[in-house]
């Protein structure tokens, strides 16, 4: 490597490290609560409502919204990365505690306590699975019950893929009610539209989905109580709840208890999905209307949407560059170190290559999830996951290049009397440089793409608007992340291409 390139790298590292420390310094405020949310609209809304209530009490709130699902939120809570998120009782008993039987809320709360978690009183609504039909179909059915579907063989019954698979889905439901339809599968996001347009007649729904209101759909009565209840509850750590310092916070949270019923939640959700109002705005209107927050206490609507978008973009872009820059830096450093250590030991190179290959086969989201118990959520685990991903292309290219150098050149440099180190520095590395560079380039582009997933574990970056946008079906938001990420990948590809040819053209100069 030339001195110039080394200097550039040093500067880049310094830049990345400084921004990293500035950012990590900023997030360390004295008294604050971190609220997490899952990656779907309703959970965003609930988290934002509580955040606004707490902020109006003068507390500082860190929003770790859009974390990638139940497992990630749950682990993040247990690992003290977040202090609270909204969970559903059915999910807690089925997916988290893996209980076979439906248990009472008291017994659920007890079992959670043994896990060190404290389940707070429910908000009111029950977001359970339900069976949805158009209003005119409902009118044909006696008592508007699920059982009444029995006689209606000409209805087109189509369910989401997940509902067809789950034991508490169609399998159990059809047995309980003795229904026999020939059913097929559909993507959940498309089902409502298909139902409303009359393409299908019956589908599964979540009982508080905003689309139910938007398309004037009716939920059939579960008269045999087949579906478990999914009451939304605030979930915190028991130790956090028993801390006297947090007593005032708990009182604010308890204000929400019983305040949001099915219809209210459905209408709040509908404002986001059908009227295109941001969840922040819907949450603000709700807390004001409920009197949880006095008017004028919380920040007024920001005026310039464009300025907002640009400042978000800037923040996300910088975070994205930090994530990929650090991962790539360490990936390059350790990738080269590992390769240089292993290249002349055939057995070890093989093991190294298979290990790196193995890492690559772990799905990105799974790798991020695995990181949580070890490193928590946020920046660090994301950088580590990206670092692990960047290893394979760098190590593979470096090892291949170093081991496939023309043997004549090796024996000539031996014969000239070069030491092993001189040979590596003056012959092997320069000859491998284009391949090594190509490896780093691949790693960079992979990192930029994969880093968008880091938003699922609260690491921010350009994935942030994508994750939120996906949750809220907001194409504008998705594009605000996806377009810059794609441009960044292209730009990186271009810059590396330029740098690569600069490295190769050094072959022509004399020293």
């Amino acid at each position, binding site marked *: 490597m030339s001195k110039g390139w080394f200097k550039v790298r040093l500067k880049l590292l310094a830049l990345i490290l400084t921004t990293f420390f500035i950012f990590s310094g900023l997030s360390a405020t004295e008294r604050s609560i971190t609220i997490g949310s899952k990656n779907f609209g309703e959970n965003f809304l609930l988290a934002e409502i509580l955040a606004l209530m707490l902020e109006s009490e003068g507390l500082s709130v860190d929003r770790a919204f859009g974390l990638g699902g139940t497992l990630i939120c749950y682990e993040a809570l247990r690992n003290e990365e977040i202090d609270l998120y909204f969970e559903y009782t059915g999910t807690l008993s089925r997916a988290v505690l893996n209980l076979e039987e439906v248990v009472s809320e008291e017994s659920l709360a007890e079992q959670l306590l043994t896990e060190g978690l404290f389940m707070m009183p429910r908000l009111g609504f029950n977001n359970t699975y339900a069976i949805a039909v158009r209003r005119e179909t409902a009118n044909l059915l006696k008592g508007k019950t699920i059982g009444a579907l029995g006689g209606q063989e000409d209805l087109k019954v189509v369910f989401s893929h997940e509902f067809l698979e789950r034991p508490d889905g169609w399998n159990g439901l059809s047995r309980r009610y003795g229904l026999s339809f020939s059913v097929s599968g559909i993507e959940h996001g498309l089902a409502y539209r298909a139902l409303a347009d009359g393409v299908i007649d019956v589908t599964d729904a979540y009982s508080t989905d905003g689309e139910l209101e938007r398309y004037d759909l009716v939920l059939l009565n579960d008269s045999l109580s087949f579906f478990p209840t999914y009451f939304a509850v605030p979930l915190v750590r028991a130790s956090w709840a028993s801390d006297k310092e947090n007593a005032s916070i708990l009182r604010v949270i308890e204000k929400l208890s019983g305040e949001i019923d099915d219809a209210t939640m459905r209408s709040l959700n509908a404002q986001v999905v059908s009227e295109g109002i941001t969840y922040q705005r819907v949450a603000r209107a709700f807390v004001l209307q409920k009197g949880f927050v006095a008017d004028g206490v919380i920040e007024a609507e920001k005026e310039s949407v464009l300025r907002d978008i640009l400042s978000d973009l800037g923040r996300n872009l910088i975070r994205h560059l930090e994530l990929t820059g650090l991962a790539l830096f360490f990936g390059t450093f350790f990738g080269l170190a590992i390769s240089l250590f292993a290249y002349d030991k055939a057995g070890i190179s093989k093991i190294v290559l298979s290990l790196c290959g193995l890492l690559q086969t772990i799905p990105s989201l799974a790798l991020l999830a695995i990181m949580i118990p070890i490193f928590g959520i946020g920046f660090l685990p994301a950088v580590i996951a990206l670092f692990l991903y960047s290893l394979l292309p760098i190590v593979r290219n470096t090892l291949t290049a170093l081991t496939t150098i023309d043997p004549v050149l090796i024996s000539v*440099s031996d014969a*000239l*009397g070069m030491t092993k180190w001189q040979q590596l520095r003056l012959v092997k590395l320069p*000859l491998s440089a284009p391949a090594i560079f190509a490896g780093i380039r691949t790693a960079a582009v992979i990192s930029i793409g994969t880093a968008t997933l880091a938003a699922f574990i609260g690491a921010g970056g350009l994935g942030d608007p994508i994750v939120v946008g996906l949750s809220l079906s907001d194409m504008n938001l998705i594009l605000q992340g996806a377009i810059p990420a794609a441009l960044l990948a292209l730009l990186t590809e271009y810059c590396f291409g330029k740098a690569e040819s600069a490295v190769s053209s050094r072959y022509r100069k*004399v020293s």
Partner: protein
Amino acid sequence: MVTPIITFTNVSKRYGDSVVLSEIDLEIPNGQTTVIVGQSGSGKTTLLRMVNGLIKPDSGRLEVFGDLVPEDNIENFRRKIGYAVQGAGLFPHVSVKENIVLIARLVGWSREDIDERFEMLMRQMELPLDLSDRIPNELSGGQQQRVGLCRALMLKPKLLLLDEPFSAVDPLTRLELYEVVEKLISNEAVSIVMVSHDLGEAKRLGDRMVVLQNGIILQNDLISNVIGNPATPYVERLVQSAT
């Protein structure tokens, strides 16, 4: 006979089951050009590459410059021996000049000494100085081979090993190369050991000839004696094939 610069005593080498060199006893005299001749697989290249320690003997004793080929610090030992190979083996990523002077810079020669020696070698090999900044790919095969010779001679070695350096170029270029090597032999005080499968080449450039077959030395003598008095029918056939 002159003092030997290289002495093989009972040296053997095998790769797996195949014996490449079998109990070789050989003295190579100082100040002369010795050509090792034999078909491919005769062990001639192995013999040559043992001299600068690229290949280690399995058994036997090999002395160069009166001492055993060292185990430690072999780099220093190798720097006293020039080495040029078929196809030149130039480093493709650096210039002609860098190829030639690299090793001198590594051992700490001054810039002036380097430049002086470099220019002298270029002249001797009849290479124009404006090739200095070119990369090897931009040179003809013959030019590359000359650069390879310059590189081998940079540190003023007392011993030069040539591994079929003329076999990858066309006949006309080969004749030109013979001329520069002849000049080199008369200008530089260097002993040469050259591997060749071309008896004509041996006759033109060499003083002595060693004929190898299947890892065994058939004859080791002045070239005129080998030609006039072949030791075995194989050597005789070899001699006849070249005339």
